[in-house]
């Protein structure tokens, strides 16, 4: 009998331990996913911050460039650089036939002509001389150099031919291939060519959208929260507003995209694909988040503050505006930043209002067509070229970096400035 009891107790203790283990492993799983996730993004993305350059000797032959003696600045601008650019690539292999020359040309980006031109514009004395110029390697060679490209594939499944690889290996052996920090990733707009594509246009698009979103959502949300928390009478109508806000906070983001498309574009005829429309759409989405945060922090201000102000003869409006609202600001601000961080990562509504258009210029105002960082991630992730994979990961790293900074900022505001009432 006694033994039986002990067995039962043991069984119960074992069940207890098992249950505890389940809980621990659940947390472990969640954290494992997070780690794999971050590891994967970083391991594929970090190489995008490096860019491969081929160092190619270029002879600035005045005749090939169709230049006269003592050319002016304009002449240099208008000169024909294609021939010398082509020739310098072809000279890498003196025995190359026509097909091979073409392949040689494709070892660098199509931008190589411009790069040679810039070199000469910087130093006009180069005419007639030979200089080694840094040329952006094509994205495939870039990937080969970074070791992301399987060289053992059969040739017809690769975008890099055996011949190109041979020449490339010669260049590597001669130390004519260099890897440097990829500035153009941050300064270039999007491009169809992976080696030239950068995040500048989508970054500016994101900044503009977030600014528009902030300028609309913040004032409206704060005013609405003040009304609902401090002035609204308790009746059916304000209850309805409240239910509305809570529901809006849980409406799928793509529905806001449909709203932007159906109302802002179709009825108000605002310009498509612009951060203006994107920002308005995002502001409608973040509105409930900010209202909820602002109400919570207004609620946290103790009634004694209000009572003291009222007792001193302040009107209700003065009490609210001079005392309650300033005291609630830290909480409101950190809620706003978190709402904006959400908006910054939002993709689907922006796709619907056309911010997926291919934009190869950097937008200068919210009225210019633009993409945004998350949309850029989507665009690049959908394109087949291998060179874009690391770009996507790098873009994700930039985006996550911003989100982390914003969230940290929100935390700091909350901890530094929020008054603890007790």
């Amino acid at each position, binding site marked *: 009998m006694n033994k039986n009891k002990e067995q039962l107790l043991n069984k119960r203790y074992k*069940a*207890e331990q098992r249950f*505890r283990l389940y*809980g*621990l492993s*659940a*947390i472990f799983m*969640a*954290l494992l*996913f*997070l780690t794999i996730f971050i590891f*994967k*993004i970083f391991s*594929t993305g970090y190489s995008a911050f490096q860019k491969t350059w081929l160092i190619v000797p270029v002879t600035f032959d005045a005749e090939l460039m169709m230049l006269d003696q003592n050319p002016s600045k304009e002449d240099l601008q208008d000169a024909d650089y294609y021939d010398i650019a082509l020739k310098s690539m072809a000279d890498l292999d003196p025995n190359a036939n026509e097909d091979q020359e073409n392949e040689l040309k494709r070892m660098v980006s199509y931008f190589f002509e411009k790069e040679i031109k810039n070199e000469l514009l910087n130093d006009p004395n180069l005419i007639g001389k030979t200089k080694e110029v840094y040329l952006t390697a094509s994205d495939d060679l870039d990937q080969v150099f970074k070791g992301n490209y399987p060289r053992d594939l059969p040739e017809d499944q690769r975008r890099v031919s055996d011949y190109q690889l041979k020449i490339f290996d010669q260049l590597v052996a001669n130390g004519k291939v260099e890897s440097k920090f990829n500035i153009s990733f941050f300064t270039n707009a999007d491009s169809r060519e992976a080696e030239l594509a950068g995040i500048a246009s989508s970054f500016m698009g994101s900044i503009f959208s977030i600014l528009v979103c902030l300028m609309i959502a913040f*004032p409206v*949300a704060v*005013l*609405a929260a003040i*009304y609902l928390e401090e*002035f*609204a009478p308790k009746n059916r109508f304000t209850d309805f*507003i409240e239910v*509305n*806000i*809570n*529901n*809006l906070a*849980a*409406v*799928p983001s*793509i*529905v*806001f995209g*449909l*709203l932007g*498309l*159906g*109302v802002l574009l*179709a009825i108000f005829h605002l310009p498509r694909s612009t951060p203006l429309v994107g920002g308005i759409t995002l502001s*409608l989405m973040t*509105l409930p988040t900010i209202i909820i945060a602002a109400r919570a922090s207004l609620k946290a201000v103790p009634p004694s503050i209000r009572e003291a102000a009222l007792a001193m003869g302040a009107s*209700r409006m003065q009490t609210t505006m001079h005392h309650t609202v300033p005291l609630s600001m830290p909480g409101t601000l950190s809620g706003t930043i978190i709402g904006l*961080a959400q908006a910054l*990562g*939002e*993709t*689907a509504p922006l*796709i*619907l209002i056309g911010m997926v258009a291919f934009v190869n210029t950097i937008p200068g105002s919210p009225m210019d067509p633009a993409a945004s960082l*998350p*949309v850029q*991630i*989507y665009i690049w*992730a*959908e394109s087949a070229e291998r060179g874009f*994979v690391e770009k*996507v990961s790098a873009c994700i790293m930039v*985006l*996550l970096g911003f*989100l982390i900074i914003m969230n940290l900022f929100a935390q700091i505001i909350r901890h530094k400035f929020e008054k603890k009432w007790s």
Partner: protein
Amino acid sequence: MNLILFTFIVLLGFTSYYFGRKKAYTIQSTKKRLTALPQFYGYYLAIWCAIPAFIIFSLWAIFEPTIVKLLILSDYSNQGYLDDELNLLYEKSKALSRGQFTGEITPFIEASAEKYLSLRSIAQSSKVVIVLSAIIASVVYAYKRISSNSRTREPVEKFLNAVLFTASLAAILTTVGIVFSLIFQTIDFFKVIPLFDFVFGTHWYPAKAFVRDSSEALDPTMYSDTFGAVPIFAGTFFIAFIAMCVAIPIGLMSGIYLAEYASTKVRQYAKPLIEILAGIPTVVYGFFAALTVGPFLKELGTSMGLEVSAESALAAGGVMGIMIIPFISSLSDDVITSVPQSLRDGSYAIGATKSETIKRVIFPAALPGIVGSILLGVSRAIGETMIVVMASGLAANLTLNPLESTSTITAQIVVILIGDQAFGDPKTQAAFALGMSLFLVTLCLNIVALRVVKKYREKYE
């Protein structure tokens, strides 16, 4: 032009604030008692300056384009044009006046363009005149009021109160906007496609409904068997189901562990770390699912002799589940912590172990809240877009095999609406109809979930 006028009005507002306050000081210096603090005199004047400007600006923005259009099109009224052609003519002359017109320029259009420009300039200058005179009139009126030292604080506060109230209507306006933008397109859609075919049809090929000209659009036989949404709805719930299979056990167990077992130190670090999962943008999850999880599952399946699509429902659903973990864990954590301590103490007192207490006492007590959090998670899974667009297929298969690709409501909306859309095309309208069903489903889920959670909270407060 508008910007200059606007800046000018803002400046006027500031000056009138200054003059109002100054007037209050002069009243004070005559030993009269002020009815409010001096700045209220300033606010009063500034508000009287801003209101007429705002009203006229908005009226102008609403009516100017229509009136200009009417005036221009009155030239063409007797020539038997159709409405669409008139609209086109108007757009053409507008584009020409901006110098953006690239088509053939006829003398008619050129004349309209000139007329358009002249009308616009007349409108602009009359706007300036009207706005400025209205401001002056209202400011003079208001100045007289403060000079007689009548009340200023009450009107100013009433005005502020009205502003606050208007702001709080924004949420309702947004909801109205959503319903408004969805409902008309949806109604148009169901005029062409019978509701029955949409809800019970099993073939979804919107690409088939490519309309070449408007006469085809009216031929309903063309659309039979193209807009049956059953595969889409099934795919949506199927992927959400897979997601919940991942999210519920992990989320719930970690919520329970954090609330009942974890030391404060573990809780302090583990909780925010898990919540990071909720802060990662969904497009990043989509990329992860498409690049890593999909190929991984495919390889795993091939090694076990299974045929796995690279864009399987399992990959999308699984990754979506990871995304939902923190929603469920945080909410159930909150819910469990708010179960009163007395229930626990009672259970321990009769000799129950911790896990028995959790399973038999706390879990039943917290069940409504947990159900609410799961429902919110389901609503999120149904509305999730990017993961599905990037990691699951875009072709709508009616299947219950998690290794094949399926499609969801959200993915189809994106597929249909990406790029240029023609309003009035059943394909575009189909996207709005899908959006409407998505909105309704998530709305019901949210209302039920929020109500359940609220009821539960009230029970223990």
